[in-house]
């Protein structure tokens, strides 16, 4: 079996840097992490210095994702030897038990941590993750809400809550969670865009108008966000065709939709570069937009 460094012609430093990039940007490409990380640990451990501990942690979690309990246990043992009694390592031991579906034992580990340190957010979040894994969405939502009352600034948790609500089709509460995120991150185009999608899904003319405004806002924050552009087109088109909208509102929205359509066409033209496959895409988009054009009344 060829090594990663042979197959891709990379040095161990490049492998270490890639791992760091994936760690910092929170990628979940576990198969790749295991491939690169395992080789780094086995062949180059001595060169890594203190980096090795955080790499053990990263590789261990990725190994759990890939059902590589052998690799996960190896990493865990190294960490346990080095950091005896550490809560951070204990949480990793708990995660391994979760991966093996030994939820009761995992819960005991997390409860032990919390008894020692009731403010340990990682252990609390793992307990909620267990509820999610067991399909107990209502309890997970309830626990997460309680957690957020105490830790109001935890962005990751607010986003998790929004997603749990969306999966339960409780769009109103999902919108509320996303509003919290938008307030603390006004420049994040992704939260804006997802909020707009939730409003659109809720439906009704007022929500559609809000959705259009937030798609527009997301586009202002990042003019390359295709979802925001498509969303703007869809919401404006629907309002423009709605019997409940006044003549002026309809006229304005038809204009917005037409603008969005031309921008979408332009984006596809730019992406096209004349390849045969993207020509199909471009044609399909053009036809779709044509068929949906609303004639101004």
């Amino acid at each position, binding site marked *: 079996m060829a090594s990663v460094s042979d197959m891709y012609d990379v040095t161990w430093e490049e492998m270490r840097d890639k791992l760091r990039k994936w760690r910092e940007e929170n990628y*979940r490409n576990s198969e790749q992490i295991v491939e690169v990380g395992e080789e780094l640990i086995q062949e180059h451990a001595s060169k890594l210095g203190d980096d090795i501990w955080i790499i053990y942690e990263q590789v261990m979690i990725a190994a759990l994702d890939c059902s590589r309990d052998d690799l996960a246990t190896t990493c865990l043992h190294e960490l346990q030897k080095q950091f005896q009694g550490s809560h951070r390592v204990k949480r990793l031991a708990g995660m391994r038990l979760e991966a093996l579906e030994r939820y009761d034992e995992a819960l005991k580990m997390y409860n032990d941590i919390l008894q020692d340190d009731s403010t340990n957010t990682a252990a609390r979040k793992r307990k909620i993750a267990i509820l999610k894994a067991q399909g107990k969405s209502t309890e997970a939502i309830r626990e997460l809400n309680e957690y957020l009352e105490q830790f109001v600034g935890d962005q990751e948790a607010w986003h998790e809550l929004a997603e749990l609500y969306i999966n339960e089709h409780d769009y109103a509460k999902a919108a509320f969670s996303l509003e919290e995120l938008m307030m603390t991150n006004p420049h994040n185009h992704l939260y804006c865009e997802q909020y707009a999608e939730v409003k659109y899904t809720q439906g009704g003319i007022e929500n559609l108008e809000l959705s259009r405004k937030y798609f527009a806002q997301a586009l202002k924050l990042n003019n390359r966000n*295709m979802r925001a552009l498509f969303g703007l087109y869809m919401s404006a088109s629907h309002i423009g065709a709605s019997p409940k909208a006044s003549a002026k509102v309809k006229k304005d929205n038809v204009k917005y939709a037409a603008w969005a359509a031309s921008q979408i066409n332009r984006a596809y033209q730019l992406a096209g570069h004349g390849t045969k496959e993207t020509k199909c895409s471009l044609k399909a988009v053009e036809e779709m937009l044509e068929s949906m054009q609303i004639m101004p009344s």
Partner: protein
Amino acid sequence: MTVIKLTTQAYCKMLLHAAKYPHCAVNGLLVAENQKRKDGQPVLCVDCVPLFHGTLALAPMMEIALTLIDTWCKENKYVIAGYYQANERIKETRPNQFAEKVAARIAENFSEAALIMVDNSNISMGCYDPAISVFEHHDNKWKCRDASIDCCEDWSEAQKIMSALLEDRSYDSLIDFDNHLDDLRNDWTNPEINKSILYLC
């Protein structure tokens, strides 16, 4: 009741999508050739368009995808004939409200539309069993079809090819509609994977 069957290409691309995002829910559409069928002839889904991964239950991108793919279908004399979904949790095999809504919308246009749920626990390197459950629309409800009915046009071929694709990690290069929205140059018709499957046939 008309039976739905999948070609190897449709079955494989659907499962590759699930394999690419093991930690997420995924969904997509199945398309069939738009032609008059004789009584009793099964609906053959010839291709699959992987749509989204992660948070599925939001309307706007789904509407865009349905409209765009519908247009593409008309160009290629296809029709959208089904919807598939793989849930996030391995033990969760029932369709949720969103899945039923999308499938019902498809059924408005194609009365024999099928709703296919991927059975995550049956996805393995050896592909011993078909990893899907087919739901059909009866009396306004979606009922699970008898698992003994063969879901693939040629199961042994599908099994062999699926296994080979998983070994090769072909799912790394599968493009879904989400990937397309991230970068318009990504092609959701997956011509390279289609070629690989044809080559393995």
